[in-house]
């Protein structure tokens, strides 16, 4: 339901757009804030999980008898403790299989059993006493290998969906998607120059610093409580109840502070295990993942293999764009974001002929889960690399080539729908005019850029706003705060009611205290839950006016709300002194009892988002190491509610992209085991790797929000991979088609190019 009150573009904001301190700030700088692993319950046990050492194996038998006899062990669980309540198919069944392996272990690190014991050392000892009888099977971890006809099969009943006729033989290709319009073959005929290249990207992990943690308690009657760090505690409640076969209302989930998610905490891993252990032991159980478990058993993003072909005329008009996107998403279908890769790949262009074919592929790797703008960065890397190469071939400045072919209002997007007002052109123009763009480069330095796209969405939110007798306000929201959203919620409520930010406090309610809220994902929280806050404030405002009307003895519609006061609507309404929020609140016990505002809905109209990034990189020709020397993010925020946190989203996303582009990758051995499951070998950017990240917030109001707000959380990870690859190409003369651009790979590329005596692709 897009609101009918389109943003008044000249609206003067009092609170929105300022930079107040966040309400949870002091707790977080003093160490008081309680994250997932920081809670304890009386009599709590330590839960630990036994994981498969094999990439692919049939689990023939699990013998837990010795572990059960160990003193201090209170519960041991296996697949037998998770009877299937899901009907044996679909996404929920796959979640069940992932949470605790059933017939097969599908990847190294797949959970096969768990114990609860009175101490960590006893739990560890108990795991060693569990005997699992495996029949090891051949495995496959690479996406191209997994697609080959003779590849080891993960599922005998997987027949590629979306091809005609239906395949006769099973394969590891779960689904095929196709998007686009026009006729690409005809389009290529009109092209003067065509560039065609193949790319590969490795899996990256969301890399949140807080490992998954859950504290569960559950009685034999099925009543349960769960404390955990998640991006969606309602999702956790619903999924866990269904997996455990209990009524949803019996499980109360409380959201801890969350130490980063980035999409990685939008599903369950250990939560159902903790509950099942607690049920069996009839005592509270705390399960915390180790970092190694986080890498091996919680969701990285997809690894990909991508082919791109784009044709242009001599004067720089794209005539056709074609892409094939192969995304490996772990052992279950529907987990890789192949379709979003295909849909988003060409979304920043105005194209008459475009086709994107995407394959969702299964392999013996951990089940992937969303990572910030899932699927888009890899596709963008491939497409924007080819775009840059085409611009060079045309002898055109890449920025002008992009502007010439940019999607605009009225463009039929590459995934179908026609765009309304969008901010892509504005970000490109801003980039062109940015001082960064004209700054001189030093020796061994290169500059690159890329433009990226992400969808954004709304979703379900429920907000309650309570007004105690002193006129201060508590806002209860159900969207976990992963980056300062409580501050934004308070700001929007204060703005709407015309009161000070300090008068409002936001909390994250547990699942039993407030209606359903979707997972904090898709950059939805400030947009959708924020809009619910505004509407709840309006609801409260109506009630406040009604109390004033009753006090004055005039009709409700004769009262209006202005800057924190109820006032008679006009001279006819009567001559009464305005009543402040405080006064109405103080009188509330006598005028009808407590005052609360409420809103529940499903928000739509999020509006798509675009960003343009510029990057300077310096290459050490001796080692191949890339140093980012300057970086600028330009993105449309619609309206920045709290600009500091908007900048923070831009900077954080860009730096995650920098890590993915330069260093981060899942490295598998021949045995199908992950070789770098720790922060030492899986290297995320550290402070000394980086320069300041400059940001420019553009504000092109989103017509779907009363203040014009757009989601900003995800788009910032889309352009960095390509921007950096383009900068490295500019610095070295070598076009790299595989990331990460780790020093050995870059060095090899430079040396091979030297041998070949000129420019080439590596």
């Amino acid at each position, binding site marked *: 339901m897009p609101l009918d009150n389109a943003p008044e573009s000249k609206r003067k904001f009092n609170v929105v757009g300022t930079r107040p301190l966040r309400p949870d700030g002091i707790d*977080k700088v003093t160490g008081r804030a309680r994250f997932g692993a920081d809670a304890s319950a009386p009599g709590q046990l330590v839960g630990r999980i036994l994981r498969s050492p094999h990439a692919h194996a049939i689990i023939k038998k699990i013998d837990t008898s010795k572990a059960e006899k160990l003193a201090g062990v209170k519960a041991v669980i296996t697949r037998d403790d998770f009877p299937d309540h899901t009907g044996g198919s679909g996404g929920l069944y796959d979640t069940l299989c992932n949470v605790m392996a059933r017939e097969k272990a599908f990847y190294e690190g797949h959970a096969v059993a768990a114990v609860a014991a009175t101490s960590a050392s006893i739990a560890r000892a108990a795991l060693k006493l569990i005997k699992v009888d495996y029949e090891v099977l051949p495995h496959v971890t690479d996406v191209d290998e997994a697609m080959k006809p003779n590849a080891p099969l993960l599922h005998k009943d997987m027949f590629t969906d979306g091809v005609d006729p239906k395949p006769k033989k099973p394969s590891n290709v779960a689904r095929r998607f196709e998007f686009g319009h026009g006729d690409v073959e005809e389009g290529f005929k009109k092209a003067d120059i065509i560039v065609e290249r193949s790319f590969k990207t490795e899996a990256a992990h969301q890399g949140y610093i807080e*490992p998954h943690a859950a504290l569960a308690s559950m009685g034999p009657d099925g009543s349960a409580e769960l404390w955990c760090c998640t991006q969606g505690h309602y999702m956790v409640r619903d999924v866990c109840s269904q997996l455990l076969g209990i009524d949803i209302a019996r499980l109360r989930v409380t959201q801890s502070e969350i130490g980063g998610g980035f999409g990685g905490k939008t599903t369950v891993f250990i939560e159902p295990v903790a509950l099942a252990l607690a049920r069996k032991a009839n005592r509270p159980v705390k399960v915390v993942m180790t970092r190694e478990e986080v890498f091996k058993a919680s969701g990285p993003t997809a690894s990909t293999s991508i082919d791109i072909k784009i044709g242009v005329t001599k004067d720089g008009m794209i005539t056709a764009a074609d892409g094939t996107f192969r995304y490996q998403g772990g052992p279950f279908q529907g987990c890789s974001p192949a379709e979003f890769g295909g849909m988003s790949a060409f979304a920043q262009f105005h194209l008459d002929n475009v086709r994107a074919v995407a394959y969702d592929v299964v392999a013996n790797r951990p089940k992937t889960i969303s990572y910030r703008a899932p699927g888009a960065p890899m596709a963008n890397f491939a497409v924007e690399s080819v775009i840059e190469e085409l611009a060079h071939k045309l002898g055109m400045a890449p920025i002008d080539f992009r502007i010439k072919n940019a999607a605009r209002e009225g463009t039929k997007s590459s995934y179908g729908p026609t765009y309304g007002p969008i901010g892509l052109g504005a970000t490109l123009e801003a980039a062109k005019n940015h001082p960064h763009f004209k700054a001189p480069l030093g020796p061994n330095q290169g500059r690159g850029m890329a433009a990226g796209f992400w969808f954004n969405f709304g979703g379900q939110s429920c907000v309650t706003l309570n007004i105690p007798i002193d006129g201060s306000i508590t806002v209860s929201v159900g969207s976990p705060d992963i980056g300062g959203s409580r501050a934004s919620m308070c700001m929007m409520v204060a703005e709407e009611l015309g009161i000070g930010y300090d008068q409002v406090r936001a909390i994250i309610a547990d699942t039993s205290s407030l209606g359903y809220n979707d997972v904090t994902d898709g950059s939805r929280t400030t947009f959708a839950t924020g809009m619910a806050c505004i509407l709840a404030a309006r609801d409260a405002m109506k009630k406040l006016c009604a109390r004033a009307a009753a006090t004055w003895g005039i009709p409700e519609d004769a009262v209006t709300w202005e800057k924190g006061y109820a006032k008679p609507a006009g001279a006819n309404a009567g001559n009464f002194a305005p009543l402040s929020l405080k006064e109405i609140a103080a009188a509330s016990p006598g005028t009808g009892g407590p005052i609360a505002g409420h809103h529940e809905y499903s928000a739509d109209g999020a509006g798509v988002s675009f960003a343009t990034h510029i990057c300077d990189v310096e290459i050490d020709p001796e080692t191949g190491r890339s140093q980012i020397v300057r970086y600028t993010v330009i993105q449309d925020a619609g309206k920045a509610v709290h600009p500091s946190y908007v900048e923070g989203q831009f900077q954080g996303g860009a730096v995650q992209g920098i890590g993915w582009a330069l260093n981060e990758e899942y490295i598998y051995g021949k045995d199908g085991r992950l070789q770098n499951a720790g922060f030492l070998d899986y290297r995320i950017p550290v402070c000394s790797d980086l320069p300041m990240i400059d940001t420019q917030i553009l504000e092109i109001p989103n017509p779907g929000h009363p203040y014009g707000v757009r989601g900003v959380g995800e788009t910032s990870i889309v352009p960095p991979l390509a921007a950096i690859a383009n900068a490295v190409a500019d610095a070295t003369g070598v076009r790299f088609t595989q990331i990460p651009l780790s020093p050995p790979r870059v060095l090899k590329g430079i040396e091979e190019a030297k041998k070949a005596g000129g420019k080439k692709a590596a």
Partner: protein
Amino acid sequence: MSGITVNTKINGDPVEFICEADETLLDVLRNRLGLTGAKEGCSTGDCGACSVTVDGRLTCSCLVLGAEAEGHNIGTIEGMAHGESLHPLQSKFLEHAALQCGICTPGILVAAKSLLEKNPDPTETEIRFGLAGNLCRCTGYDKIVRAVQDAAKEMRSGKSAKSKATAKKRA
């Protein structure tokens, strides 16, 4: 399992605890003493979320055994503010929005404090290398570096008395 009795000082207060031989200082702080400000991000010394000081020296508490704390002075995030007054670093982190999720914040604050004690006027590069052992996945470090720069400036000019007022206003 026989416990080891350990006597130490934590944030200036004498503390006696019993731990098992294989327990890390981080385990002891978090699980036995209820000091959960130090976080476990990796337990291998790579993330810095568990940063504390041992006799003033910046240390990953996940790499120290609880038993090794015997006779030493441990400083944790819980000891950083004095009464109602936040440390200037704490105030500046809030002011500059130098935290998003905040899981890295205690470790980074402890590390930054230790850095500024050794070097009250660090360059941007010195700050970046000084904090290179502390991972933050949310912020891209930009606002963290700025907050440390600003706090250093304020501490050099000695007007940290201001923090008390701001702490109150925020509460």
